[in-house]
């Protein structure tokens, strides 16, 4: 009833090509962004920012990046943790080695470092695909894990690669409190998500999707696999690298290579698959799900245990968390293999034809 595009006639190309072509969508997105910037900081407390919202924003950004590679271009990657690490350590190097380096520029340059590494480690994708490629990208993961631990130059010779940054400043504005960190990350996520949304419906995004659907057929109709695949690797690792920089600088403050280990790669891939491959919105749903679930389980399990009269030890809770997390993932993949984004689009379709069933 409310969500219908009847009567919204496009009279020029500009109106026809805008990101959100339906007026209701446009207003909903604007309202959502406004709510996230203004409404949320008024309602939640510090713990929620630290534990859920800031990790969610940064990992959602990384998931958007990975979704470009996995969901739009169809190249399975398990090396995203490494690209986050490159982004973080790259930005660290720029900020420490160059006097007066602005924070945002350093983060973006960290992303550029990740881009270069992403292109290099994307070269195997020209020869192999699918699961072989997934294993090949693990090479990036293990190589960079090792490099940041053992090669002193990358970490400016700090022992065991643990580094710390302090006094984050943007144009004289010091990012200190959780709310400021939240705003900073939210700004990045908004800009990059809109850019990504725009990119995937442009010519290059269509090339990626053609490669994903059938790369031989795409090559036959004149799409260069070399250019399309490597550009997907480049864009994806740039966004992941920036997310890595934010993770290190804003969320952790100080970190070591283990913060970006292979579990991080798995986590990001979970977000993409659970959120829905080939959907920017889905990446955010996936990130919210994966970030919130362990925290929810951690809080809920002792309560449930006390209801049935069992006190669970800390180790027991950790193990039960593992089991429930694994079981939920499997259950979720079985009931909705196309991810949360699919539920979202079904919901939209239902709203559009409401109150009729078909």
């Amino acid at each position: 009833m409310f969500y219908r595009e009847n009567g919204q006639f496009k009279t020029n190309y500009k109106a026809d090509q805008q990101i959100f072509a339906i007026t209701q969508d446009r207003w909903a997105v604007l309202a959502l962004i406004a709510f996230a910037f203004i409404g949320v900081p008024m309602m939640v407390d510090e713990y929620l920012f630290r534990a859920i919202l800031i990790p969610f924003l940064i990992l959602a950004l990384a998931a958007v990046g990975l979704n470009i590679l996995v969901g739009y271009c169809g190249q399975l990657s398990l090396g995203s943790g490494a690209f986050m690490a490159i982004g973080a350590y790259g930005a660290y190097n720029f900020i420490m080695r160059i006097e007066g380096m602005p924070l945002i520029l350093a983060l973006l340059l960290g992303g550029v470092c990740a881009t270069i590494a992403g292109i290099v480690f994307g070269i195997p994708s020209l020869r192999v695909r699918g699961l072989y490629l997934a294993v090949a990208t693990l090479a990036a993961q293990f190589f960079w894990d090792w490099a940041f631990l053992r090669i002193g130059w990358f970490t400016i010779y700090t022992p065991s690669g643990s580094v710390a940054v302090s006094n984050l400043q943007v144009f004289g504005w010091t990012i200190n409190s959780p709310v400021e960190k939240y705003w900073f990350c939210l700004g990045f996520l908004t800009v990059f998500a809109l850019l990504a949304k725009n990119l995937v419906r442009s010519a290059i995004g269509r090339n990626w999707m053609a490669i994903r659907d059938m790369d031989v057929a795409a090559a036959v109709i004149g799409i260069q696999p070399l250019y399309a695949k490597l550009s997907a690797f480049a864009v994806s690792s740039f966004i992941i690298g920036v997310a890595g920089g934010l993770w290190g600088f804003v969320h952790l403050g100080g970190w070591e290579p283990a913060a970006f280990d292979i579990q991080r790669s798995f986590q990001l891939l979970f977000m993409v698959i659970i959120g829905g491959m080939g959907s920017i919105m889905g990446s955010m749903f996936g990130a919210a799900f994966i970030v919130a679930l362990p925290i929810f389980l951690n809080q809920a399990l002792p309560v449930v245990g006390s209801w049935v009269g069992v006190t669970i030890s800390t180790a027991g809770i950790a193990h039960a968390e593992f089991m429930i997390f694994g079981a939920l993932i499997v259950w979720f993949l079985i009931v909705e293999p196309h991810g949360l984004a699919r539920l979202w689009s079904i919901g939209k379709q239902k709203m559009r034809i409401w109150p009729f069933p078909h």
Partner: protein
Amino acid sequence: MAFFLETLLGGLMAGMLYSLVALGFVLIFKASGVFNFAQGAMVLFAALAMARFSEWLPQWLGFDNLLLANVLAFLIAGILMFGIAWLVERLVLRHLVNQDGATLLMATLGITYFIDGLGQSLFGSDIYQINIGMPKEPVFLLDSVFEGGLMVNLEDVYAAIIAASLVILLTIFFNKTITGRALRAVADDHQAAQSVGIPLNHIWVVVWCVAGLVALVAGMIWGSKMGVQFSLSTVALRALPVIILGGLTSVPGAIIGGLIIGVGEKLSEVFLGGYVGGGIEIWFAYMLALVVLMFRPQGLFGEKIIDRV
């Protein structure tokens, strides 16, 4: 020279163990097209079960015989692995038929978390020992050829013998028995196999059981070498380069790939590692596999990938 040969032998022994884990991957991938990330968790679970039951059984039943305890623990662990195989097929795979590779991969990752959690909450999360009576002391070979001889770990030799005999058994099973042939038929073409009356679900249970058994043997050997602990499940990550090097669909590939990776790792660590700060063996294996993939995208022994539009 003697040092080089020692390193080489050590690499071959380690490679044999890698191939054991890799074999589990290949079996499942061949038969069901599932890239089973949970193989490492299965190794850990099997090793934990084995270690704990061989410790518990003598206490519960009041006997004091190492061999009997080990045999019983092995049987119980085997039954547990069969149970897991059956449950995985029943509860997961059956519902995910025809999904694409990435979804299945993620599902096996979910299974990994589940089995890791289950194993540790059932059997505890400390470091345990498996004592299957393997000799620990080294022997020296070829004294007459080299000064001081070649130092060889007897334990490694036994492990290699066990691994080799398991491989031979599996080869016989695949080539000579009816079930084995049915497995190969399913691996070749699901639909064709189904149309000649091979029950797919049944075959999947069998193949996961076999993979569970392989995991049990691998867990037993690794466990008795290094102790049973959580890090055992990362053995799967060490075995991944082996299978892409050898080819995802080839049993001999898993074995030869394992040997190549094992030798490559040890030689690189000993002869190159010193120059770059050590610890390179884990990524060196991946790089080696990557280089091979650039020239042979299907791995050394994999079936040729044919693209049709």
